């Protein structure tokens, strides 16, 4: 996981220098965004759907204790093993124990952001387990050893040639890089694995509290394979992923599919009410539900940021974000990238030193909030996070000094006048075409890549005074 060891600047420089990545990111986000426009327009009254989605999510989050309890009761009544994990480490331990109890060797996974969040693959691989990501995109990045670069299309930063090169050692012969060849290879390769999987691990898009059901959405059908064939199934869910009943599910599924890819529904939407009926010819006999907190309860208790739990992980905010569109997901350094990743990562990980850059990965243009199907005020949350970071004393020394100086001068009129005059004088060697183009640090941090407006020869305060005198 090389990305995690680089600094933010290194990651950003790397992203900016990678022209395929930038082109691919624009292509993917353009496509997804335009499809979403069409799919949301077709529904008519999109704003009413968004409002309903927001209302449902707010209701869930403000009654999360009630609904979670209901979900757990329903699940346990049927013999599902429910595991409540406070931390990622707890969740990993639960899964490891289940795997070792069953002496399982082959573990199949369908897409789960929680498994990325808890770095599950790594742990299982250490135990010598053959763990396979079955979603094509996830499979590609698993072989490459990289985190996802987009929440919906995780391998969109890879060229087809890179994909062919990754598959070749597994195939044992050269593969041409056209899409049908590559997908056919994966179909054959994965089939064998599906048929001999001991344990299936899936994510969860929604959990229906009233019936204890899990809703899973995939386009490839791998989610169905993983939840139908192995004898034991584990589902990982973030504890906020609830919907009260089937009544509300229609709205959320419509919002999710249309916002994510512009489809009416994904090819496969599966509603599991596990485990299987004893007489059913397929489906898991044993079912485990792992519910992860990982500081979500802290976010729940924090009124400023509670709304970030409303997210349905559709990725629409990624596709409209000017920062994401320039950089792709790896520059963020976090499992969750894009606007929502910038909001939740510092809150989940509680580490300003490592994740303090994220609230600044935004131009605050508000496109994310406008795109969000459940109306999370993302840009507003990013501003508030910046405030939190500043309050917690984690801003860099230079920034603090600059703001101290700012306060000093702007609360002393005479000193400010004098400083401006001095500035107008000192800037001369660096001014080209009325712009400041160089200078010593910390000024050079800015002027290395951009210019600054010059200090006006006659400051505003002087202009104002002159105007007053003229009257």
């Amino acid at each position, binding site marked *: 996981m090389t990305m995690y060891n680089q600094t933010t600047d290194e990651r950003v420089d790397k992203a900016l220098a990678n022209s395929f990545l930038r082109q691919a990111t624009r292509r993917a986000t353009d496509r997804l965004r335009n499809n979403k426009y069409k799919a949301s327009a077709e529904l008519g009254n999109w704003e*009413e759907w968004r409002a309903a989605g927001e209302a449902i999510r707010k*209701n869930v989050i403000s009654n999360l204790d009630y609904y979670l309890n209901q979900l757990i009761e329903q699940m346990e009544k049927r013999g599902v093993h429910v595991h409540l994990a406070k931390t990622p480490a707890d969740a990993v331990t639960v899964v490891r124990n289940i795997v070792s109890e069953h002496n399982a060797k082959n573990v199949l996974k369908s897409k789960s952001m929680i498994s990325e969040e808890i770095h599950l693959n790594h742990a299982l691989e250490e135990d010598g387990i053959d763990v396979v990501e079955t979603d094509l995109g996830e499979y590609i990045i698993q072989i490459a050893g990289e985190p996802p670069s987009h929440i919906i299309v995780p391998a969109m930063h890879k060229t087809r040639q890179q994909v062919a090169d990754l598959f070749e050692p597994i195939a044992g012969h050269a593969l041409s890089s056209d899409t049908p060849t590559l997908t056919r290879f994966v179909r054959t390769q994965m089939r064998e694995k599906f048929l001999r999987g001991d344990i299936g691990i899936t994510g969860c898009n929604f959990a229906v509290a009233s*019936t204890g059901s899990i809703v899973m959405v995939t386009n490839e059908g791998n989610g169905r394979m993983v939840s139908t064939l192995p004898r034991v199934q584990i589902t990982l869910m973030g504890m906020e992923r609830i919907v009260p009943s089937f*009544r509300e599910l229609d709205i959320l599924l419509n919002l999710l599919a249309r916002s994510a*890819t512009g489809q009416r529904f994904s090819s*496969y939407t599966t509603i599991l*009410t596990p485990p299987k009926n004893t007489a059913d*010819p397929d489906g898991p006999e044993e079912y485990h539900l792992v519910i992860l907190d990982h500081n979500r309860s802290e976010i*729940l208790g924090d009124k400023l940021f509670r709304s970030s739990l409303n997210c349905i992980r559709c990725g629409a905010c990624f596709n409209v974000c000017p920062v994401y569109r320039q950089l792709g997901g790896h520059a963020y350094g976090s499992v969750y990238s894009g606007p929502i990743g910038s909001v939740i990562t510092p809150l989940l990980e509680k580490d300003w030193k490592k994740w303090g850059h994220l609230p600044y990965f935004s131009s605050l243009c508000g496109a994310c909030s406008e795109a969000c199907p459940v109306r999370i005020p993302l840009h507003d949350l990013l501003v508030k996070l910046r405030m939190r970071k500043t309050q917690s004393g984690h801003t860099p020394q230079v920034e603090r000094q600059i703001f101290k100086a700012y306060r000093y001068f702007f609360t002393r009129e005479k000193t400010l006048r004098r400083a401006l005059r001095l500035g107008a004088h000192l800037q001369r060697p660096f001014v080209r075409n009325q712009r400041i183009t160089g200078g010593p640090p910390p000024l050079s941090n800015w002027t290395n890549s951009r210019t600054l407006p010059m200090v006006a020869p006659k400051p505003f305060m002087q202009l104002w005074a002159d105007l007053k005198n003229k009257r």
Partner: protein
Amino acid sequence: MSNTSDFISNLAAKLGRPTPTQPPPQVKLSVPQYQLSSSAERVSVFLQNWQALGGKGAIVRSEDETLQCLKQWFGEQPITWFKENSKALLAWDKLPTIAESAFSSLNWPLTRYSQSAFDPRDRYSIAASAELGITGSDWGISLSGTVVVKSDPLRGRAISLLPPRHLSFIESTKIQDNLFNVLEEVAALGSPPAAIEMISGPSRTSDIEMDLSIGVHGPIEVYVIVIDH
């Protein structure tokens, strides 16, 4: 690991109140739902949308029409399949009557998945080698061209998943305008079956350079026959 009551009471504390003992009030849902005026329209929009996703679809009114439709779609292929694999056509234990009689008139023998082998893994292998999986559908959704299938001991989920082709029979009366109506009926079941599969077209992916590709894991070809009595 936490026990449930600690976990839940921690959330209640974060929310600053005790956990409600009564269900929270339902959110009012007032979105305008997609509605069609007649059953005929429902069927035709359903088929249009199913075909737009890449599926093949037809309406039949009799056993003979069903037979003709199957012949047209599959031609002599089943004969070739049977030469290699006697279990090439894999089906539920019981399909709609019209389908059962059409297959027997064609003399295309159906293997019943649930009875095809004792060990589940053997059943999966049989399903993976089959050429065509045949099921019924419990509901259809016009707006999205979706078939909805419940699991049941006499059915089997792998039939619509492992073979490269999936054919589903649906009665025209089971086609609804939208998902909301279907979910209302699901909710009315009380306790749902172990799995409800909503299938909208073939298996697809755009994970390689956003290039759409069909059939990466699930069926490559999907067929639906609407039975209109």
